[in-house]
């Protein structure tokens, strides 16, 4: 969770507690079809306006911030971290940044990013002789 900005609340145990979890935030699943890549990322509590998806060359970057709750009281436990995050995923082929669809529903970001035209799978007709 090194990508989190811990400026809001320094918790020396956070590293221990999250040690067994995936290292980067947000966790991402990657899908592929012949024409496009699909990504899913878990971003609970992140407002769509605080989320930024950029596609450049063969790199997709998910960046944003999760704002801390306004709390007037004492914490019994605090496991949800707030702050800025950024994560880049490098793909094996060039991407087409003009064909990207993204939506965020129930804290789950889903995006479909087309491969560059020359990288798309083409079906070759096999002739009989």
């Amino acid at each position, binding site marked *: 969770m090194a990508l989190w900005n811990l400026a809001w609340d320094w918790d020396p145990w956070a590293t221990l507690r999250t040690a067994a979890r*995936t290292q980067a935030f947000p966790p*991402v699943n990657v899908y592929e079809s012949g024409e496009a890549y699909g990504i899913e990322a878990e971003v609970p509590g992140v407002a769509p306006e605080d989320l930024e998806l950029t596609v450049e060359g063969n790199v997709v970057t998910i960046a944003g911030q999760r704002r801390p*709750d306004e709390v007037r009281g004492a914490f019994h436990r605090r496991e*949800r971290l707030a702050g800025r995050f950024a994560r880049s995923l490098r793909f094996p082929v060039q991407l087409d940044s003009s064909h990207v669809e993204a939506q965020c529903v129930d804290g789950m970001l889903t995006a479909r990013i087309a491969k560059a035209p020359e990288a798309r799978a083409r079906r070759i007709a096999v002739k009989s002789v």
Partner: protein
Amino acid sequence: MNEQDKTSMERKEEPRPAERTREEMEFVPDADIYETDKELVLVADMPGVDRQSVDVDLSAGVLTITGRARDRKLEDGYACTGREFRSGNFSRSFTLGEEIDSSAIEASMSRGVLRVRLPKAVPASRRIAVKEG
């Protein structure tokens, strides 16, 4: 199961009294709990769970939150090439030390985050001053 799958599933595990009959994933959501003079507030991350699929139950001083994740799958033609999280259900229980007014519990769900407000009950017993005599 490869190494990567293992780490992503190990992330949330809580000892359970008994096994579930269905073989499906169940995760322990990350949670914040804070207390003010009037209430206890629980905030839990349940990405992929909508408002209709969440349950909040308080019985015998144990608060249980559960969320059923929608089966999220990209449409046909996509194959998964890298997985860092799995879909499954969320469940977690807390024993509450405070007396809670169970009729006034409010829960809301926004952007995959569950918020439960548990107002404290007005104490029924009164503190008795002990006189000297």
